[in-house]
């Protein structure tokens, strides 16, 4: 085991992919000389040169579309959109091209592209730099959406995503980049289609992903002090969703709370709750709970930002409500 960070795990994943496959290259804003907005790609330009660590102008639509074209042309690009907030400038390319070309062409042309981006609030960056729109992207058929929350997934999901013949979006929560932990020295590719039970429990299922995983695990620890054994599920893949793991957990615990940093209305949490109702209604002993972001653009002041997004006390309280112990 080696001591590392989420940031270094992502960097190692990129380095490994570029070494393994001559078709792989990274492009995005400030990925080269600056070293990446979040320092993920620091040092890679020196190691691999400007062709494979390609700085782009601030042309999100242009270089995302170029990634799609390059993927169709036989390369395996990793496009880094600095943050999900700027991905909106590339939404036309992601939705109208990457997600549709295989279908529109009757299966003739595929887009084996990986798009990485940072997501989430928590750094007092205010309303235009704090979005969590991964749930939006999970709405779109034709793409896959991943949310690595652990060091293993930060290290292992990229290579598997690059092997996928279809476009894969990877969302890295900004609050995780500094997270430290132990990672096996030989850590490598992981599956990208299964949810993981991060903490087993019998009383309630807490279903979450990404940056909220750690808050949810902390809430589960707090609940244990009150003799509540919560099961924590890390979705890992937001599209497709691993219904089987979710339903197996709910069948066991008979109660569920979904924790999602997206806004509550029309959210990924709404989708998961609906699926539980559709597939496991008779197993439920209580209404499904949701802890989502409040219906407000993310504010700048720390106390308001804190109040806007899911936090440990809210998660624990929602679990107790579902258990009738509020």
């Amino acid at each position: 085991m080696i001591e590392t960070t989420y940031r270094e795990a992502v960097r190692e994943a990129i380095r490994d992919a570029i070494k393994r496959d001559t078709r792989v290259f990274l492009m995005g804003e400030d990925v080269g000389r600056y070293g990446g907005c979040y320092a993920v790609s620091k040092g890679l330009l020196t190691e691999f040169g400007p062709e494979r660590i390609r700085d782009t102008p601030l042309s999100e639509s242009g270089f995302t579309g170029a990634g799609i074209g390059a993927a169709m042309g036989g390369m395996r690009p990793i496009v880094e959109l600095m943050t999900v907030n700027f991905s909106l400038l590339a939404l036309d390319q992601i939705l109208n091209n990457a997600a549709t070309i295989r279908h529109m062409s009757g299966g003739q042309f595929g887009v084996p592209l990986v798009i990485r981006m940072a997501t989430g609030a928590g750094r007092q960056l205010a309303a235009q730099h704090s979005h969590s729109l991964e749930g939006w992207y999970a709405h779109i058929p034709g793409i896959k959406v991943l949310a690595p929350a652990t060091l293993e997934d930060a290290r292992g999901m990229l290579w598997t995503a690059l092997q996928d013949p279809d476009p894969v979006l990877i969302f890295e929560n900004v609050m995780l980049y500094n997270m430290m932990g132990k990672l096996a020295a030989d850590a490598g590719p992981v599956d990208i289609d299964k949810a993981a039970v991060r903490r087993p429990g019998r009383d309630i299922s807490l279903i979450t992903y990404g940056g909220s995983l750690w808050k949810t695990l902390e809430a589960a620890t707090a609940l244990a002090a009150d003799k509540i054994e919560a099961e924590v599920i890390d979705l890992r893949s937001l599209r497709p969703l691993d219904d089987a793991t979710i339903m197996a957990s709910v069948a066991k615990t008979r109660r569920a709370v979904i924790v999602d940093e997206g806004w509550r209305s029309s959210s990924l949490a709404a989708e998961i709750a609906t699926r539980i109702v559709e597939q496991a209604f008779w197993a439920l002993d209580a209404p499904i709970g949701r802890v989502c972001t409040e219906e407000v653009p993310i504010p700048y002041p720390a106390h308001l930002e804190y109040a806007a997004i899911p936090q440990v006390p809210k998660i624990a309280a929602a679990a107790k409500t579902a258990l009738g112990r509020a």
Partner: protein
Amino acid sequence: MTAPADKLHLSREHLLDLLKQMIRIRRFEDKCAELYTQEKIRGFLHLYDGEEAVAVGVIPVLEKRDRIVATYREHGQALVRGVPMTKIMAEMYGKQEGCSRGRGGSMHLFDQATNFHGGNAIVGGGLPLAVGLALADRMQGGDLVIACFLGEGAVAEGEFHESLNLAALWGLPVLFVCENNLYAMGTALALSESETDIQRKAACYRIVSEAVDGMDVVAVEAAARRAVQAVRESRKPYFLECRTYRFRAHSMFDAQLYRDKAEVETWRQKDPIVRFQEWLEASHLIHAQDVLRIEAEIASEIAGAVAFAEAGTWEPVEQLTRFTYAESALPADR
């Protein structure tokens, strides 16, 4: 008719082929319009009527290995590129024998065999794809030319400017072919651009650019030879603006309230087919029988395409969600 890029081949055979390709597009689309009124073809149908000299002048100059990114007004491009008319017509019908298995329709003709990358119906959205295809070719050490068709309406889109900048900045082999037909749907160029001389915009990005009479197939072909050769050798982008006009409505839903009939009539005097045919006749390069023969061949081909489409089959509804993601194995017929 793929002659060396450095000289024009104005042999009688070549000239006849240029004429035939233009008439072939015109007659095919006349048939499409007719089939549209019969509700055999539905959705949007954008006809190329008047602009044929652009596709016919440019596409045969490309090599087979080159790649093409087209717009939603792309029947002509697909036909000239060699996508079988039968498969194009079946696509219009939505039949699974179509070039995109019926999934795309008129606006999304795709064909892997001829490197025809659509059929892109978001204005400007195809340009970044062409940039990426060119980037892939450069990184693989290839010598391709990526031909990217766009209308002048795309010039107002951010993706136009982003793509031209990237192509020039990174030195990518993209031939941008702007079909300037003066109207973005119903909005005249002068009402949407502060600078209406479009090729100047490309020049601002340090891209070699030129404008050509898009109603003159020989002029377009000559310009395309210069352009393709320049891209092939320099591995840098080139911008060719073809000044043309669409005689018919934007789509089948357009009452054309935005332009005078007299203006359309003026442009009809420059009809690329009529003009070229008259020149060929005046120069004694073709005979009346040649045109009759061409028309007969095309009529027969179109009849065959319609019969093929009529005989085509509907994809079973059970297969609705196919092609959303890759399948490990495609059916034997692909």
